[in-house]
């Protein structure tokens, strides 16, 4: 192993994300527009979802690692023109995932065991009922914070058995004057907001 490579690895390990670097990252993700951080948040969500689909144990940490590497690359080279922002993030995410696999293969058995334990963990009936009641209360609170139209939409879109649900969605789309696809996207976004609100409410209740 030669000296420049060792020095480079050490520099990478010692690098920290500064405020300046973070702002440059935001600007790079915005691609000239000012999304007020929304592009960053969306990219982070996609990274977390990617690492989660790969069954990584800490998808949010890996997402942050990926974004940190993008920011460092911008700092070092000042400009990334070879790829679009989304594709470049994906490429780095693959590298991060590959590194994660190599690391976990060293301790594959232990991590799989932990995963199985987390998956197979049994709660008592009382704990389950308590958690369920908390979530329902949080859901009621979060639902009531939605606008009336959005509350009605999500109720009609997601409730009901398969056949009824399909018919509800069809009539709902017709009443709103939009396609089924547009309705689906709108309902998804409302549900995501609702889920985030419930998660926060549940954490506050613990």
């Amino acid at each position, binding site marked *: 192993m030669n000296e420049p490579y060792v020095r480079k690895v050490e520099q990478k390990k010692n690098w920290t994300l500064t405020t300046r670097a973070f702002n440059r990252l935001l600007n790079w993700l915005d691609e000239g527009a000012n999304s007020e951080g929304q592009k960053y948040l969306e990219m982070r969500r*996609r990274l977390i979802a990617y690492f989660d*689909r790969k069954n990584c144990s800490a998808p949010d940490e890996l997402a942050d690692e990926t974004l940190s590497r993008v920011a460092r690359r911008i700092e070092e080279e000042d400009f990334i023109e070879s790829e679009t922002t989304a594709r470049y993030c994906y490429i780095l995410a693959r590298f991060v995932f590959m590194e994660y696999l190599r690391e976990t293969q060293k301790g594959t058995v232990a991590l799989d065991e932990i995963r199985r334990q987390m998956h197979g963990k049994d709660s008592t009936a009382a704990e389950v009922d308590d958690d369920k009641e908390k979530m329902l209360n949080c859901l009621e609170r979060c*639902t*009531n914070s939605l606008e009336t139209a959005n509350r009605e939409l999500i109720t009609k879109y997601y*409730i*009901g058995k398969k056949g009824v649900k399909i018919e509800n969605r069809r009539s709902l789309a017709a009443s709103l004057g939009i396609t089924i696809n547009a309705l689906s996207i709108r309902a998804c976004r409302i549900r995501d907001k609702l889920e985030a609100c419930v998660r926060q409410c549940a954490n506050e209740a613990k």
Partner: protein
Amino acid sequence: MSNPMNNNQTITEYLLGVLPEPESERFDELSFTDDEFVDSLHAVEKDLVDAFVQGELTGADLERFKAHYLASPLRREKVEFAKALQTFGEQELAGLRAKPARTAATRRGWFAALDTFFAPRPAFQWGLAASVLVLLIGGGWLVVDNLRLRQQMSQTAARRDVLVQREQELQKELEGQRMANSQAEQELARVRDERERLEQELKRAQQGGTKPSSGEGRIVSLILVPPLRGAGQVPSIAIRPGTNQVAAQLQLEAADYSAYRLALIDPAKNQTLWRSGNLKPRIKGDRKALAVNFSAGLLKPQNYTLRVTGIPPGGGSEIVGDYPFKVVK
């Protein structure tokens, strides 16, 4: 997402981890670079989770979901949320979570309690619609009645104005009549005064140039018409005791002279007992007359003659006529 291969079934297989490696890597990249694919991915994932929660997954899909999808803590949280959402929605539809309204209002706040009006409850909505309709009808009737009353008021006001004007006119008319009456009364008083004056003047005229005897005395009237040719009845007068004056009025056939004189003659003795001064004839319409007063003491029960002579402008006198009369007791 323009590739028709990226349908919901394929995305489901990707989420369950059964897609071949090259296809899976392609979807991995699309999950970053293609916004449309990302939206579809989210929607299919949610439907997949709901299908599991509602027991619609079966066979290999169900097994793969449990083995692969539920392996992630984050994905398990999504399943828990989907279960809660399903329960919440069922309770909403059943109306269980909407009661009691008062408790919900205190928990959710006053404005949120208004949401009970917008909840899908047909009976309540029909009742509300009926109430609104009744209010609209009632309000409309009130408006119409108000307009009708306003119209009546304006008509009444107009009639009142007409009556007020008529009253003013009658008042003016009454004032006019009062003024006329006052003037008539004034005229009547004036006429009365004039009559009294004329009566007094007549008295004075009847007394003529003779001095009135002492105290008050009676006056006897003697009206003589022009004598007819031939015999005729001689007018007579009675001189009662206390009679002082004789007021003689001699009608003339013509008033050819501007002045006349009268003489009282005793025909038996052919003696002139009295003479008047110059008299002017009194003309009333087509009648001409001489009026004179002389003393009744000159007369006795016998015949007398009043001779009328005219005074021409050049002087002298000309007998016009003799007017005989008789004095009786």
